[in-house]
């Protein structure tokens, strides 16, 4: 009986019990003593079962919001302006989760709208390349000062690594195949986001997680928001804040104060992350918005009407270009290709690539000897176009020819993950390049300052944020 599926069993037992009860009630003489004595034990069993069902239905009450005590906090794995993130284990199942605390203190406007958005959007977005929100749970704080206050936690499935941690560890050796697979995942996830009409607005390597199975996941929707597609460009659209995206990953239009941006800001971020796969550190690390613009000009060529016809319409264009120490130097050439070429070409058959500095990794035997990854370069060039209209959409980027050429991207990077025995947290220990990446530029410490801070951190502590 136990092997039977329950619906059938329920049906059977209920009819059975009904007949039995009626027999007992009428006490029919035809039945005699034998049937009763014969079915005595099963009858009890059936009743017990029915009672159990009753209990079960009683317990299944709406609404679902579980207590945070169902999870056992193991360690803190992230800290930032947005709150704290803990690694935790589900007590009943042993599953690992990440608990993200929703900060409520100093919240003048009530419950933060960003958290509401995050819950709503993550619920809509069920995709292998997007972080999985399991549930929201609450905890009553016991401190007398904040009595009767509930703290909310978002419960995510746990991911072992973040991209920033992986990239800053030189021992992690990535082949072209790994990079291609991860970029493919990244762009697929981004495409899903944009198709669901959501802007991520905080693309950066630290917000890209990689699960133990080697699947890349986009995380941290704390700045994300739904957007309205511009169908008719004449209709003025709601303006968004331009104080989004970590400075190093901020596209030129945001730096020039655009407030009616679209999905292309995330594409720029994806381009920065893609370049980072080879350079192993953020490609443009400005400390102010002006400096960041200068860095962009230095790498991607100067910003002018030739490459970007609409750039003069940007709100800050006049202010920025009239500055004596202008952050918009003219006459700079686009050196992206030449700067990155050797990095990307080295990832060829000779095996001594940048991502494999010790030459211990297997050479990519299956590649032809004169292999040059021009397609990767082309994709990167288009992702990091100055003009947002010339950047491809995530949909177009996903269909880029690079992903359809040898070596074809795999389903996951499990083999890479298998070579990494420990979790990401050790990677983030005292890694200067990735420590102190704030969420907003105004909260972000100056990189040189961050460097100093991170050097002072004793081993065993990590300060980077994975969400």
């Amino acid at each position: 009986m136990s092997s039977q599926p329950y619906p059938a069993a329920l049906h059977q037992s209920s009819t059975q019990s009904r007949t039995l009860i009626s027999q007992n009630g009428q006490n029919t003489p035809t039945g005699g003593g034998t049937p009763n004595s014969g079915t005595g034990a099963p009858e009890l069993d059936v009743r017990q079962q029915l009672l159990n069902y009753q209990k079960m239905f009683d317990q299944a009450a709406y609404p679902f919001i579980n207590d945070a005590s169902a999870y056992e906090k193991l360690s803190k794995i992230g800290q930032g302006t947005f709150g704290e993130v803990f690694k935790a284990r589900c007590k009943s199942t042993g599953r690992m989760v990440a608990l993200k605390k929703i900060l409520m203190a100093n919240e003048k406007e009530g419950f933060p709208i960003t958290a509401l958005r995050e819950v709503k959007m993550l619920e809509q977005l069920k995709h292998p390349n997007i972080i999985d929100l399991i549930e929201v749970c609450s905890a009553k704080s016991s401190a007398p000062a904040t009595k009767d206050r509930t703290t909310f936690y978002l419960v995510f499935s746990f991911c072992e690594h973040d991209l920033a941690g992986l990239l800053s560890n030189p021992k992690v050796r990535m082949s072209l195949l790994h990079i291609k697979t991860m970029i493919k995942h990244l762009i697929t996830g981004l495409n899903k986001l944009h198709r669901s009409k959501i802007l991520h607005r905080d693309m950066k390597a630290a917000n890209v997680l990689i699960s133990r199975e080697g699947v890349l996941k986009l995380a941290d929707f704390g700045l994300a928001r739904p957007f309205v597609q511009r169908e008719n460009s004449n209709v003025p659209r709601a303006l968004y804040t331009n104080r989004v995206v970590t400075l190093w990953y901020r596209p030129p239009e945001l730096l020039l104060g655009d407030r009616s941006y679209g999905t292309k800001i995330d594409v720029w971020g994806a381009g920065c992350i893609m370049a980072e796969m080879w350079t192993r550190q953020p490609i443009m690390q400005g400390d102010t918005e002006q400096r960041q613009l200068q860095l962009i000009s230095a790498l991607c060529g100067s910003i002018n009407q030739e490459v970007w016809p609409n750039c003069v319409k940007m709100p800050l264009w006049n202010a920025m270009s009239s500055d004596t120490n202008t952050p918009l130097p003219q006459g700079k050439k686009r050196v992206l290709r030449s700067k990155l070429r050797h990095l990307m070409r080295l990832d060829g058959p000779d095996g001594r690539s940048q991502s494999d500095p010790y030459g211990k990794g297997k050479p990519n035997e299956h590649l032809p000897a004169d292999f040059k990854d021009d397609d990767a370069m082309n994709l990167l060039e288009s992702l990091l176009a100055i003009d947002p209209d010339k950047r491809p959409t995530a949909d177009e980027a996903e269909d880029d020819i690079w992903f359809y050429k040898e070596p074809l991207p795999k389903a996951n990077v499990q083999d890479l993950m298998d070579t990494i025995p420990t979790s990401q947290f050790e990677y983030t220990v005292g890694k200067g390049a990735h420590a102190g990446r704030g969420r907003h530029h105004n909260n972000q410490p100056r990189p040189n300052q961050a460097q100093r801070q991170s050097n002072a951190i004793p081993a065993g502590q990590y300060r980077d944020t994975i969400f």
Partner: protein
Amino acid sequence: MTTIQEMRKLVEAKVQTMIRPNPKPKEQNGTVETKKEEEEKFESTYKQMENPLITPSSFGKRPLYSKVDINCDKWLMTLDEESRLKIDNPPSLADGLSKELEAEIRYLGCELIQQGAILLKLPQTAAATGQILFQRYFYQKSFVRYHFEHAVQACLLLASKIEEEPRRPRDVYNVFHRLERLHRLQQSGHEINKETTRGLAPPKIDVNYINTKQHMINSERRILATLGFVVHVKHPHRLIVAYGHTLGINESRPDILQKAWNYMNDGLRTDIFMRYKPETIACACIFLAARTVEDPIALPSTPFHWFEAFDTSDRDVEAIAHQLVALYVRRRFPNWPRIKAELDSLRSAKNAEKAAIKAKEVAEKLEKMAPGDEKTDPSSGNASRKESPVRKSGEKDRRILGDRDKKDKDRRRKRSNERDGKLDRRDRDRDRGDRGDRGDRNDRRKDDKKDRRKRSRSRSRDRKDKNRNRDVGKRYRRESISPPRSRR
């Protein structure tokens, strides 16, 4: 940039990745078999992806990891026994609220949210969300336990955020304050026009504001916790338009559509959104609108009713239509001050009950420590002391005419709390005498004829409640004779 050759390469590469490796068989019989194989393959892969911990025997059990489900279907309160019990007997009834008054408060709350949303220039969807949240919340919580005024403001605040049109708590407070004043004007028989509303200024930032705001924010959090973040509502607004389009009445009869829309917005004040799916409600609204609009039209009913095409039964449609029609029978707006007074009385009764229980506990403790010593028994003194603050505050209410009701309430509560602990023999005696004087008027005095000196704790509590009720009743009567005049 891309040459034709490159394009061809791209297409070829894409096709390569799309082609399945297993060859297709030529015979017809073979194709059927391979299909089956494919299905099996699909099934097996599907099963692999499943959580291995979920077996057939987990039927009916709670899922291992509860999922966040923001779909409002989960919030239909007719699906399981417990919710059905709740919707028939809202939790407020357990605290002594009458069913009529409960419905009245519900109506008032929804009305306030609707008007508040208009004053805040929120879209109608936000107003609808707020009202549905309000209804859901008070099917889980009691009106006596939680102030509906705070919940109304919290719902407005939350709905504005959910519908991506955030408003500040300060704005919500201003609007609510104005609504309160306007309501009082209306209740006292004034018409609402520019003349009468000239004196209404936005409230100052004071202690009252800070307290209210804190209450608002706490209430918002409580709503979220109670509803388990299931706060995103699917509205039938869009469905009405879609169904109208299908029926072909969008262009020819826009008045029907408008009327259906109105019905739906008014229907937010009833519990239909707790009982039926938005699709059903949209159908019912169109159904009713087509019949009640001037120059009604017949919508298709053969071979079956049109709404059956939208998976709706005539039983549901009729039930909703009846509820909507019943909504327009109401003539008078709910009397807010009266509701407030009634809730206050229930609350203070509840508080007194709690205090008495606590006093009893304390007394038991004391008795254990010093048995037989009557003076240490705080309950009798406590009970008789309780009476006076209420009576006094009743007088005060008359003077202030409920203008600072909220403030007053807080003050009163504080005062009663202060007095709870104190014992004053003289006061108690005076109270007793007081009671004797009024005894003739009280029709429920029979119990009291027994030994008055050896009152048991529970009985004293009883009488205290009665006295309180009588007091409140007096207040009503006065109010009904001459409605409170607002200070302008």
